[in-house]
């Protein structure tokens, strides 16, 4: 075959270009530590990368939501516990003082304590977390329970997203706790504050009948409080489970992302060494290839 000089130079140039391109490609992988540096490196992979990043972003947001939710439930639970404690104390007083051996002035004194209890329960019913009244439904900016036991909140159920596709109710609807439903009313039940107020007034008025009536009703109210507590506990546990799952998911997604996106450093290093060697030998060979010519030997 006839080989012209242009052919030789073009070939040498092409080989050197090729070696340089390969070399700088691996250099890029090494310096960014990423396999996918631009869309055309792996168009399908870019879609996967975006999806994984999106998931990771979601997970960190869900974790934030869960932290908030836990705080919110903790506060609600603490308030319920406080209310429950107050109800027990009220029940104790009622049981003791329904006994005829106590004098009227003892009942008067106990009435004062129950008055404090009423105020305490109202204050707990108006607990807030991060400037939001936890029992008020959506009316988070106005105290949901008035001094005389009126419920002024609404039935809003606050849902928060804790997982992709999962929204959980994090609040207790205060109305069920503090206001008797029509059904309950028909069965002769009262509202919580109403019951305590009945006890307070009966103690002050030395009304044994009233005290006993309040005593029975207190049992019902305590039961309601306890069942709310267990509902909350269940939500809390579920969220805790979700949180653990999210942590695991987070790890998996991170390693998944890394698998798609990151360069295999050992591979890249070896490739780099290899391409570097190729580049050098190409340069050396080109140098040798381009020199000899008949002209060098003609004198």
């Amino acid at each position, binding site marked *: 075959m*006839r080989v012209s000089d242009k*052919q030789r130079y073009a070939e040498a140039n092409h080989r050197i270009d090729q070696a340089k391109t390969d070399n700088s490609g691996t250099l890029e992988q090494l310096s960014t530590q990423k396999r996918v540096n631009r*869309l*055309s490196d792996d168009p*399908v992979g870019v879609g996967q990368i975006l999806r994984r990043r*999106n998931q990771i972003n979601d997970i960190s947001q869900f974790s934030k939501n869960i932290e908030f939710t836990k705080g919110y439930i903790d506060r609600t639970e603490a308030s319920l516990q406080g209310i429950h404690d107050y109800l027990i104390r009220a029940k104790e007083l009622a049981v003791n003082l329904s006994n005829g051996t106590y004098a009227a002035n003892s009942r008067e004194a106990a009435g004062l304590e129950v008055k404090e209890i009423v105020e305490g329960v109202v204050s707990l019913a108006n607990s807030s977390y991060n400037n939001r009244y936890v029992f008020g439904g959506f009316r988070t900016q106005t105290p949901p329970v008035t001094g005389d036991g009126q419920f002024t909140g609404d039935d*809003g159920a606050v849902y928060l997203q804790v997982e992709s596709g999962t929204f959980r109710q994090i609040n207790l609807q205060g109305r069920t706790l503090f206001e008797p439903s029509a059904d309950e009313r028909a069965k002769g039940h009262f509202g919580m504050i109403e019951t305590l107020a009945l006890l307070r007034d009966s103690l002050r008025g030395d009304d044994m009948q009233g005290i006993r009536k309040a005593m029975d009703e207190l049992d019902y109210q305590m039961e309601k409080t306890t069942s709310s507590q267990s509902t909350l506990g269940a939500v809390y546990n579920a969220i805790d489970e979700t949180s653990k799952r999210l942590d695991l998911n987070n790890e998996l997604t991170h390693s998944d992302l890394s698998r798609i996106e990151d360069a295999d450093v050992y591979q890249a290093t070896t490739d780099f060494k290899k391409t570097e060697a190729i580049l050098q030998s190409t340069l050396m060979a080109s140098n040798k290839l381009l020199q000899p010519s008949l002209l060098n030997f003609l004198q």
Partner: protein
Amino acid sequence: MSGLFHTLNIGSESLFASRQGVDTAGHNIANAQTEGFSRQRVNLEARAPSDARGIVIGNGVFVKNITRAHDQFLEKQINDTNQESGHSEARLDSMKPLESIYSPELGNGVTTELDKFFNAIQDLSNFPEELPVRTAVKETAQNVANSFKHVDERLKVQRDDINDRIAAEVGDASNMVADIAKLNVAIKGAETSAASEVPDLLDKQDKILRELTKKLDISYYRGDHNMVVVRGPSETLLVDRGNAAKLDVKRHDDGTMYDILVLDGAAFKPTVVTNTNKRGRLAGLVEVRDKVIPNLLGSNNKMAKGFASSMNDVHRQGFGLKEYKESVGRDFFNISDDPDQAAQSIRLDDLIMESANAISVAASPNAPGDNVLANDMLRLKEKKVMGDSSLNDYYANYVGVFGLDLVRSQQTRDADETLIRNLNSRRDSVAGVAMDEEATNLLKWQANFTASSKVITTVDEMIETVLQMKR
């Protein structure tokens, strides 16, 4: 007639032929690196013999012509491949800058901003009554709108850029066509009865033809007197003898993009060839300008529209805070109804711009803690608001399709390049100058020259001898 002068004549012709050999070797060496040059060869021929007293005697040598080493079939093949490679190269070169708009490293892409926006909505769901949270929603929503706009703008800048490049390349092509016609005249003029071809002029014309095939879809053949006839797309006649057509651009009827015109014939009648031109750089540029970029613009617009209207659908049902706590029906985004202007027109509603209290996520009036609609907005993230896919999937999909297109055109370009390189190598093998060969030629002609001069000195001595005969 033969005699000593006849012999002297043979010597001098031989001397001339040898000198011509050295001359051509020198010309070849001088042009060894000239783009498009084909090595030349001196073709010698023995002169017709003559009859002298019944003996047929040789009459020496003469330089018949000088031809170039050229393979016209290979040349055709190269030009054919040039058409494809020009197309794939221009396509790739003009698509490559678009890649950075969608590269995963860019932190302010549409999906990143959407993620931040939905995070802000999450916070809004947690704290619907907090003003700072609402302000964050406002800010991130503006960023989402800007990111749609940004993609729109950058795509349009690239499109305008390609449009300008088309105009420039059409100008170049027009000049080339004119040059080819001028060379036709020169080739015909230089032609003599002895030399039917003029190597250097043909080389020059072939070189321009090669460049023109890279740009434009043409076909050509060499006709009378080695003059080339070039036809362009839509059966236009670009070069015929010394006549050249003009190529020009004209704004399309809607006043935005350029159309490519060929003005040919005696009357320079314009023909629009924008879409009939299927090969060459111009075809690649037009394809990216009129198909690839409009597709991307369309997807971006569709996504902006899908996002804005699904947000609006939810937002319109909502009650806000304070002055907006008892009213519904407000939009979240304002966006043009024209689907082609969605991305460039998307912006926050004026009421929200004025006050973050107008952000309405409460399903019931007077309920500051109501986050029902914020949760509905969060569902939009997973919901198939783009027909059969979610926002993120739609984005990943349309960007992925573009990426695959990009990879494919890169592969096509690489394949074409390899093909061209091989063909050029074959062409260089035929037409390129080999120094060793020229060095040998120099030696050869030099030896020939020396020997020829010996003939002359010998005849000289013989004449001397003859003259000595009478003193």
